[in-house]
């Protein structure tokens, strides 16, 4: 089954990994039932959101250098409109977890994530952020950032080349496109009241 409306320029739907996830996601949304007006409105918002994702400048180690390469002239993530890197977590939409997160850093990362404004996304870049990478067996390394914050996209590599990161960014754009913005905000409100 092909999910409509998730188009990324110059990329075919079949070229992406893990389409099943998006299909399940869309089915879930359909079951909840969204009316047409809200749907269209939500689509416009999602178009805006998916095309303007501002990353937080956050890098702990090696992957940070490749992240710089993504920002530099060769790969140039400005083409996607992602180049407005914000240094303040309040203004950022996505946090690229570039590099190893160790025990001492874990609460700091958690706090940074909490400081970001909703809707926010997390991309785990590199083996370290996905599962501890080369330092898996260490006494002081977190085995994947998903232990402390929810991760939306995993970009494997050690470090991933800039194009791989661009690919991960497009995957995140696709995910944003299928989300229902209003349902999202309700969820976050609910989440907050629970706290």
């Amino acid at each position, binding site marked *: 089954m092909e999910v409509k409306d998730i188009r990324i320029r110059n990329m075919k739907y079949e070229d992406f990994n893990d389409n099943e996830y998006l299909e399940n996601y869309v089915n879930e949304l359909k079951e909840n039932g969204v009316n047409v007006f809200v749907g269209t409105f939500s689509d416009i918002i999602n178009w805006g959101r998916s095309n303007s994702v501002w990353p937080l*400048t956050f890098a702990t180690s090696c992957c940070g250098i490749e992240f710089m390469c993504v920002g530099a002239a060769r790969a140039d993530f400005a083409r996607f409109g992602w180049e407005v890197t914000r240094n303040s977590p309040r203004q950022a939409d996505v946090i690229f977890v570039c590099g190893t997160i160790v025990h001492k850093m874990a609460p700091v990362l958690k706090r940074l994530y909490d400081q970001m404004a909703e809707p926010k996304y997390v991309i785990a870049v590199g083996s370290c952020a996905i599962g501890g990478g080369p330092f898996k067996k260490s006494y002081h390394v977190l085995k994947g950032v998903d232990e402390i914050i929810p991760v939306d996209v995993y970009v494997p590599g050690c470090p991933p080349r800039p194009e791989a990161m661009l690919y991960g960014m497009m995957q995140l754009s696709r995910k944003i496109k299928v989300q229902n913005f209003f349902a999202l905000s309700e969820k976050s409100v609910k989440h907050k009241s629970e706290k």
Partner: protein
Amino acid sequence: METLEKRLSTLEYVSVENEDDRTTVTVAPEKVLELAKILRYEEKYDFLFDIVGMDYGDEGFGVIYYLSQTENPARLTAVKTRTGSREKNELDSVCEIWESANVYEREVYDFFGIIFINHPDLRRIFLRTDWNGYPLRKDYDFESNSIPVHNELIPDMETSHSVYMHEGHEEDVTRSLFDSNEYVVNFGPQHPAMHGVLHLRVSIEGEEVKNIDPNFGYIHRGIEKLCESYTYPQILHLVDRLDYLSGTMNRHAVCLCCEKALGLEVPPRAQYVRTIIDELTRIASHLLGWGCMCMDMGSITAFVYGMRDREKIMDIFEETAGGRLMPNYNIIGGIARDINPNFIRRVKEFIPYMRKMLKEHHILFTGNPIATGRMKKIGYLSKERAITTGATGPSSRASGWSNDLRKIKPYSAYDKVDFDEVLRTGGDTFDRYIIRLDEIEQSLRIIEQLIDNIPEGAFAAKTGAIIRLPKGEFIQRVENARGQFGVHIASEGGKTPYRVKFRSPSLVLVNALKEIVPRHKIADLIMIGASLDYVIPCIDR
């Protein structure tokens, strides 16, 4: 060397061993301070290269001090001591003699729990204050710590902890780092200009920095402990990720160390290629350092230009070695695979391109009056301070201290090439800035001389499937993009090392901030940090 032996032979409590490139002095723990004073003030051992903590099991803990003289920098002298039993874990601090011992001793305290008496500031350096146990001890329990949920509460007025000997018995003394009326600002761990996750607590008055306290450990991955469970070829991949900007050079150090221990003869082809790859990495690292320095000054365009030129080097690496940032190219015995047929052509194209771009970079940034105004006469580090703080590499060569290992003690193909060690005398931020661009030029010269003369032949020496180092302690130093990188391997003869210690050139550079920064502006703090060009993951290991 004779003078040293003569002098030491008068002391009863030491025993001296001479090997071909280093002297080992063994001393009883009580006499360390006395010997250190003799070495420092009588024998002019003014550069403390590293302090290595050791866990000898039932024989207690040990510490190895690696010392060197600026007059005779090629030779390292190791001073070894061991406490004798596990219960005894106290030693005299040598902080007052060598400034750099401050951080090294804190590190040994953090990892082994060895208490240095009279150390002015004996806090944990990498691990959290609430961490249980000392991880590099052999009996460390891996389960004793869980993932912390809450931020480490570091009060602004954090106290430093010292142990003093007072009338024969120990006395704990705590001192406050900052006054209660100081305005303390946290730079980091997440800060765009901290080049990683360094945490600086800075007390400021208006725009002026009064006091500064670096806090490390936000990327401490425990690589040294990990190495103890890995085989030698596996260690190489951790070493790459220490200082990722000079990864190949660090790897080179470990390869050289293992080859020295094994007595392997590396084929000349591999030596040449290793040298070229090292120099390319150095150029890439300096370009990134230059770019980041410009970016910290607010000139993002210069950063993008630096990255643009760096991509050319990344292409060369990718084509030949198969990785961009982590080429994984040096292996024990040589290089992982032969060079790509396009390698020589690409490198030859790169040299004139880089020369042209260097000129542009100079026009764009070096001549800019705003930039020179921000860099000149800012952040002065004198030669004497550079030596005693242990700051090596371009940052100290800007102060006039000649310490380039490629000249002092050539390894691989460095003795076959003609190049200059760039030295400047200003010692300020501008000199540290310009020295990097000049070193790029020298690296290009080295590559130019080597690229046409790569000898034919095998690219790697034959090694067994399983590499076992003979019993003993081995040390190897190389010059990486930030200074002298050292690797100390203690082997028991097995597949895995007994203890591995890396000497990070960046650690002492950050420590030097404490000396340089006070009485400068906040903007200067960022500039000085950028000009020292430290890499945090290398510090934290």
